[in-house]
């Protein structure tokens, strides 16, 4: 029995009657537990028992339907997210970036700009920091190690690891288990969900078994104490102060501006490497332009009247292609979860995505407009600077709502269909503004001032709305 006066005796995590339901299915059915600091807990159970759901709840990724989780004395898990490291079954890493690049990015989400730290954690898990191969080309074992390195980056007090030994060879798994033991000896509290209990015998302090969403038994490690099984709930309750202080001494400086810039930079770098969005958008908008030409056989004069509509409809359809891809990288390997558990502001993620999409669509417009001018024999009669203003305001109108609704459609079935279904009706006033303003500039008949004002007002209203509601959408789980 540990000394009640030592920090280790105080529960670092308290779970109070937590229920988590997904529709009619109850993944957790009234779980209550207290976990002391500086110990390693092995969470065992069959598939579907609720282990991952419990871990996600502790990581703050999934709010309980009922009950409360308190970590370090706080029930606002976002407040203490800097003290938690999480490793999931998917890697939470970008396949297109190298290990070092991944860690550099995630370090900056925690306000850590020291590259040496990234190299240290990579070495600590037995990998080479100078490896330039993208993570997507790693073996499963290497990916697991790199995922663990990401979880250790912010020197968390609490580590939540979901099946870290899965698909890892025996030797590497033993090394990982020993590493976790050393981390526990340094004072970290570690939760390991695993099917390989034997690996943690003599390393873990306690084994906790979950069945059908409930903790059914808890036993100390056989090698550490007498091998006695006792049913859950018979351990003595240990009093704890309202808050346990740990000497992490970390001040996490994560500004909105800086996070927006680093996330935007990461997205631009990845797009530059793959050029997925730009290529597909270009080809798609070219197809639209060609198909439209079969519907119309306009004279040059008629072209000026309909070109505004054609060009913006083509850009809108092409933009949907890019917008659908906006979050694709974040949900592959569940990288979005890594962002959500970091202290980085959510609005920074939204702004970075919207700005990235703005840049991609603007590049598309720059490349496609000359083709359009040639195909439809266009010549602007009105001032060109007004065309530029319309292009900027109109493009922002599409991407700000498009980025937002792309994040909403992540939570739905038929994701690719939901985005245009949600975006197009809302975008109609802006589309009308873009089309009319462009037509008026091309024909020089009327002043586009009203439409430019409408677009500006639309952009302001919906940018503010997106910034207000994005966090609610992101944290809706």
């Amino acid at each position, binding site marked *: 029995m540990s000394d009640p006066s030592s920090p280790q005796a105080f529960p670092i995590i308290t779970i109070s009657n937590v229920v988590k339901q997904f529709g009619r299915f109850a993944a957790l059915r009234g779980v209550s537990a207290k976990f002391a600091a500086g110990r390693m807990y092995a969470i065992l159970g069959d598939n579907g028992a609720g282990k991952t759901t419990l871990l996600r709840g502790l990581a703050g990724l999934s709010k309980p339907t009922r009950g409360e989780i308190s970590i370090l004395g706080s029930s606002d898990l976002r407040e203490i997210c800097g003290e938690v490291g999480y490793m999931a079954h998917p890697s939470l890493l970008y396949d297109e970036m190298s290990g070092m690049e991944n860690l550099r990015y995630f370090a900056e989400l925690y306000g850590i700009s020291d590259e040496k730290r990234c190299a240290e954690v990579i070495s600590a898990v037995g990998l080479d920091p100078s490896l330039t191969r993208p993570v997507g080309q790693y073996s499963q074992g290497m990916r697991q190690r790199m995922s663990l390195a990401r979880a250790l980056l912010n020197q968390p007090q609490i580590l939540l690891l979901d099946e870290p030994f899965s698909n890892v060879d025996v030797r590497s798994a033993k090394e990982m288990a020993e590493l976790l033991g050393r981390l526990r000896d340094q004072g970290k509290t570690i939760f390991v969900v695993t099917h390989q209990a034997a690996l943690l015998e003599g390393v873990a302090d306690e084994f906790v078994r979950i069945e059908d969403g409930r903790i059914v038994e808890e036993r100390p490690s056989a090698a550490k104490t007498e091998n006695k099984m006792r049913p859950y709930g018979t351990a003595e309750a240990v009093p704890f102060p309202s808050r346990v202080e740990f000497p992490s001494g970390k001040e996490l400086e994560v500004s909105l501006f800086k996070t927006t810039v680093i996330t935007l930079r990461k997205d631009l770098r990845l797009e530059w490497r793959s050029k997925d969005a730009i290529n597909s958008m270009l080809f798609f908008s070219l197809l639209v332009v060609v198909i439209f030409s079969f519907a119309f056989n306009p004279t040059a004069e008629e072209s000026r009247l309909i070109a505004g509509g054609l060009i913006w409809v083509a850009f809108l359809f092409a933009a949907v292609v890019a917008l659908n891809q906006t979050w694709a990288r974040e949900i592959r390997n569940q990288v979005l979860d890594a962002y959500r558990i970091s202290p980085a502001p959510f609005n920074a993620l939204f702004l970075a995505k919207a700005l990235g999409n703005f840049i991609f669509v603007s590049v598309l417009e720059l490349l496609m407009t000359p083709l359009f001018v040639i195909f439809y024999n266009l010549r602007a009669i009105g001032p060109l600077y007004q065309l530029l203003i319309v292009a900027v305001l109109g493009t922002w109108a599409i991407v700000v709502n498009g980025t937002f609704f792309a994040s909403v459609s992540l939570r739905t079935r038929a994701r690719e269909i939901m985005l245009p*279904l*949600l975006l197009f009706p*809302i975008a*109609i006033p802006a589309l009308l503004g873009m089309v009319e303003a462009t037509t008026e500039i091309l024909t020089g008949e009327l002043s586009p001032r009203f439409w430019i004002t409408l677009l500006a007002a639309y952009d302001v209203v919906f940018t503010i709305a997106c910034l207000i509601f994005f966090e609610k959408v992101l944290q*809706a789980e």
Partner: protein
Amino acid sequence: MKTVFPILAILTGVLLGYCAYQALVVAPTDQMQGDIYRIIYYHVPSAWTAFILFAVNLVGSIIYLIWRNPKADMHALVGAEMGVVFLSVNLTTGPIWARPVWGIWWTWDWRLTSTLVVWLIYVSYLILRRFSSAGETPVMAAVVGIFGALCVPFVYFSIWFFRTQHPQPVIGGGGSMDPQMLHVLLLNWLAFLCFGALVYWSRYRYEFLRREVDEAQAMQALAETRGTR
């Protein structure tokens, strides 16, 4: 409420019948359009009722986001669903009116076009509710409901300006209405409001009971242990 509902239903039926009589028989015939104008007594009240229901959706969405009150979410859902039904009536009677008057089924005048766009916005709201995951639906729907409401003034304003720049035949015409016609119009609106309130109550009751059944089934699942290992 169980005993009151049938009485209210009968009273509403009587009111609807009386108002239909007023609309089809009592109200004077329009000089220019003839009897066909009488469609207005169903066309316009349907639109007004729909927009009241969309306002309910907006209020419900805001209340849900602030206080996470499940009843607010139910009101938001019922408001949107019934608003779409009433607006569908408006969008269908519009072309039926236009055909004999203008010789065309549809015209992109600002009222019809704006109404169609608003209808699309709330249909997409309902589709989102259907396609999103159970636990997340209320939050997603509330956010989209608010976005839809924010968009409505932009829709009307932009299409109005678009169409006044490019004049088109306008359904309903402008100018003032004969007082007797206005009286019948308002009566029919009252009748539709009563009808709408009854249907709203039924729909809300259904939603309330459905969630209770879902909750009970979830609690049952919670209490059971699964048989398979």
